[in-house]
């Protein structure tokens, strides 16, 4: 994405914060987040940058590319992510953003808070270590609503 380093005057200040799900990818000793639907790892301690196979700078209105997030946890819970061993979390989105009535797709992202299902509790501390964000044990899809649980 060579174009992403050019100077762009922002229209707004402040990242959007949405909800999304990640799959888990293990690389050696590293536990990393990855897209549930695509083979894309979210790097630790670096912003995630969207890419597009077509070659333009994502996201574009004419395309479906970009980093996706739902505006509410309830909306995310209504999707099929419970079929995956998914880690749920809040994600900061910035750069070029397309806002929808139920969420966003964006150019850059980084997890802000992670909710790890109890069944994957061994991943909580490695994820906190790797990404440097708060991690909480919570079965979001089983319990519904704003989760409460043990924080790391």
């Amino acid at each position, binding site marked *: 994405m060579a174009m992403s380093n050019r100077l*762009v*005057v*922002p*229209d*707004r*200040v*402040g*990242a*959007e914060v949405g909800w*999304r799900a990640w799959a888990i990818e293990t690389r050696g000793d590293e536990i990393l987040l990855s897209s549930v639907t695509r083979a894309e790892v979210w790097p630790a*301690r*670096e*912003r995630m940058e969207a890419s597009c196979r077509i070659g333009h700078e994502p996201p574009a*209105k004419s395309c479906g590319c970009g980093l*996706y*997030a*739902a*505006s509410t946890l309830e909306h995310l819970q209504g*999707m099929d992510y419970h079929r995956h061993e998914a880690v749920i979390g809040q994600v*900061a989105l*910035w*750069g*070029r*953003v*397309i*806002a*929808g*009535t*139920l*969420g*966003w*797709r964006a150019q850059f992202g*980084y997890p*802000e808070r992670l909710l790890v299902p*109890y*069944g994957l*509790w*061994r991943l*909580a*501390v*490695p994820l*906190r*270590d790797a*990404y*440097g*964000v708060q991690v909480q*044990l919570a079965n979001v899809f089983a319990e519904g609503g704003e989760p409460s*649980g*043990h924080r*790391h």
Partner: protein
Amino acid sequence: MDIGTEEEEYVTEPVEDPVPREDDVEPVEAPVPDPDRVPAALLAVEA
């Protein structure tokens, strides 16, 4: 993911960098879950 009807396109910059620096994180505690919050049966299976 369904984000509904796309209405607006803009560029926004975070006030603070959302990516934590290496020295932003406290030393890591031992990865032992709180037994009051994790079902004992689950711990037995995972052990």
